[in-house]
């Protein structure tokens, strides 16, 4: 097994503007295109927390989308846990995501039709290994959600929603967790609590976390920082 849990090699992302829609194929000319990421390369070690930082529009979220497998790069490749993710078949990708990846969104993206507990258990439904995680109640208790497990997302506070989203991301015991501004919608105190929980869990379980933030205090709690500017790694 590779010593790196994530290897990003020469990843570029080009977005085509509307003016370019009518042309066929990839235009050689840069007109009508916008290069969001430009030959980004880095590697991440297992069990570490890495923050991707940068100004608005620097490409942080796009990079996270690409490394977490929800958006394809225009060029370059991404190796996740030794697998060239974008070469996998559709079915394998789904299975890989379910087994190895946890994703946290800034706006939580909880499923409004499911209760707090059902949201947390949801990834287990698509797991081929096991249909249960006996520690769910314990975890919910630990983060203060046990009493609210029958409530729907709209009945929860922002912090509770994010904690639900975290437990949902962790329920399949992923090897790597991707978080897009996990504390962006929370106040600083709740944000810090969320981060402390994640750091503690990472150290206990040897999980890797990649998070995007523009909050330097949050970035300071991480083991490593990758700084992006205009789509390129600058630090």
């Amino acid at each position, binding site marked *: 097994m590779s010593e790196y849990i994530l290897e990003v090699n020469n990843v570029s992302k080009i977005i085509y503007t509307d003016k370019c829609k009518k042309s066929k194929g990839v235009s050689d000319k840069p007109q009508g295109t916008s290069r969001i990421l430009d030959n980004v390369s880095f590697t991440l070690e297992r069990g570490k927390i890495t923050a991707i930082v940068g100004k608005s529009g620097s490409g942080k979220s796009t990079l996270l989308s690409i490394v977490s497998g929800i958006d394809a790069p225009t060029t370059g490749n991404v190796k996740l846990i030794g697998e060239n993710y974008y070469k996998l078949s559709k079915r394998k990708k*789904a299975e890989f995501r379910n087994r190895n990846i946890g994703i946290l969104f800034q706006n939580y993206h909880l499923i409004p039709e499911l209760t707090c507990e059902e949201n947390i258990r949801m990834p287990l439904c698509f797991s081929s290994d096991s249909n249960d995680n006996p520690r769910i109640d314990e975890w919910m208790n630990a983060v203060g959600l046990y009493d609210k497990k029958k409530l729907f997302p709209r009945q929860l506070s922002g912090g509770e929603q994010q904690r639900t989203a975290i437990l949902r991301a962790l329920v399949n015991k992923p090897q790597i967790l991707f978080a897009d501004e996990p504390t962006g919608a929370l106040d600083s105190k709740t944000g810090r609590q969320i981060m402390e929980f994640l750091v503690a869990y990472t150290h206990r379980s040897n999980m890797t976390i990649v998070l995007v933030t523009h909050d330097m205090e949050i970035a300071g709690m991480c083991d490593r920082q990758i700084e992006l500017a205009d789509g390129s790694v600058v630090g």
Partner: protein
Amino acid sequence: MDGKRMSKNSVLTKITLFLKLYRGKKAENIILLLLYTLLSSAISMVLLVQENNSVLIADGISKGGFSETEKMSMLYDSTENILGIIVVITLFAGVAGVMCLIHFRNHELMKSMVILRTYGMNEKDILYKALADALIYGIISCFFGYVIGYGLFKGFSRDILGAGYIMGAVSGYSVLIFGKLLVFMPVLIILCNLYTDLAIVNRPIVEVLYERNAEISRRRLNGRTDDEGKLAKYIIDSRYAAIALCVFIMLYAFAAFHIDGAAFKALMIMAAFIFAFSYILFKLFFRLFVDRVRNNKALHTLRDITRCFMCARKRRDILLACVISMGTVLICIVSNIRFNISGILRSAYQDNMGYSILVRCDDYEDRVNVREALKEMKIGYTSAYSKLMDYSDLAGIEEPDDGGKFWALVIDEGTDDNTHFRVPEHGVVVESYFAGRCGLMEQGGSYGDIQGNQKYNVQANNGQISDEYFNSEQGNNRQKKSEQGQSEQMNIEQDIKLFGGHISSWQLSDTDQYLSLVNYNVMINYNDWKLGIDEEWSPIFLIDASKLQEKMIADAVSDYDCHIESASGLIDEISQLMKDYMRIIAVTAATLILVISSVFYTLIRKDLISRRTELYMYRVFGATGSQADMVVFGEYIIIALVSSVVVTVAVLIIGELYFYYGLHKHFPFSVPILLITAGTAMIFIFVCCKAAGFISRKGAGVQVIRDE
């Protein structure tokens, strides 16, 4: 073993999860269940009516013989054909409506589905979701729909047929009919779900979660990653489901309902024409027009904003246009039958038969007086003689085993140049039944075949003319379409004697005579055959006259010993039968109108809710509530207007072709009724818009504009 159990549990858990997604969609699911039930009840009712009629006619044949039942079976056959066609259109429109609602219900779950996908859901799971939907909603609706359908069938049968209205054998068929229903509904629900969900599940995740145009950027990746192929696949997958649905409905309709093959084929051609017509209009004209106006015209009024939104939601607009088109087609046909059946039948009778009044003189000598009276009124006629003859009178033909008599009609002179009564020199036109009995030819299937499938073979007897003869070049050259238009005739050389005369060429006709007042079996040219007309023959005058002239003729011949038979009586009889059937058809049509109303109401309401912020913005910047609503309503009304007008014109043109070439008959639609139908469709949409707008405003809660 454990693995299998685990897998089963996993599937069940997934199904439970999918069903939980519907928690927030109770209203939509109730409406959908109602629609499924209405559709099921309409299908089961029609299936039961048709099955009962078949059993009724078969029973009549076994008891009363073929000739007694022939007329009834022909009439039922025609009405069932119309009922079958209407139910097929209802199916298409109902399915389009159901598809619309499923599409919008599932579309609202798009974000949830994408999150599920992020956590490992794949395409196979979509099938589980569709199966869960089908198993629960499909089976419940089948059960309730069948119960309602059976109740309606019993009620209508009691009213129309009276005592002994339900044949015992139908009870045996009930299980089979329920089975047919049980096949249709779940498959329909699965395919409708797949159509929407396949498109949703394969949509790029970032596009949904981050609202970024990932699709376009991926399309540029042609050849660089494997996602391009998969993107193309998602588009095709979704279309596959739609195509599969159309094919399934067509096959099901053909297999389950009693529809004449030619009528069904013509219906499909008509549907294809309407589809092509609408497609061309929307694609080439409408969209280009809207794009052009949008590009060249600045925004000045709220109407300009509506124009900007036109055709922006392609899938929705296509579905809407389909629902409106199908609904309009159905209403066009139903309203023509309901309000103009006598007019249609009379025109059809005159066009297809060539006459509408038959004057039969009981006294041979009165023929001169009647002729004079008609000449005085300047009414053209075709003169003939009729006689009930024994089969034994036929020379050269082996007498049928059961003997019997037949009606012969001898044409005297064709004074009104009516092409319907032209018989070629040395020719004879015989009814297929007669020809079959006399061994001149044989019908495909038994004579009791109530479907009326008449396929002619020349029986191998004296002339020994085989099928191969017809297929040969020589045979084909000898087959020709008759001048009479409606009769497909065959010119066959045969060494045979009829009425003592030698026939070198004779004609066989498959003209449907069940509507005829004459019911002749042999029609021959008097001058050629010299049969010796005497007092035993009844003089007959065949007159093509209007309803007004009918009364004049009746008055003119009232002094003589004559009987008048007019098409009016027969038309009234058919019209009455149609009106009885209309109640069944009306229930089917009402089902459809309910489906369409629900679809539109739900759709417009949802649109108003989802665009509430946009509407508030218009109001913030000075529009009144109704003006803001009209921006949204305008889209629906324009789509409705274009669809209904296009479809009405298409029905008018293609309907003519359909009846003429599909049914070999002519049933002209009433233009005013069609125009009123098109207008009604638009008003209907407008009312739906207003109702949805009213309810939406009522339930809007806190208003942004507080001084209102």
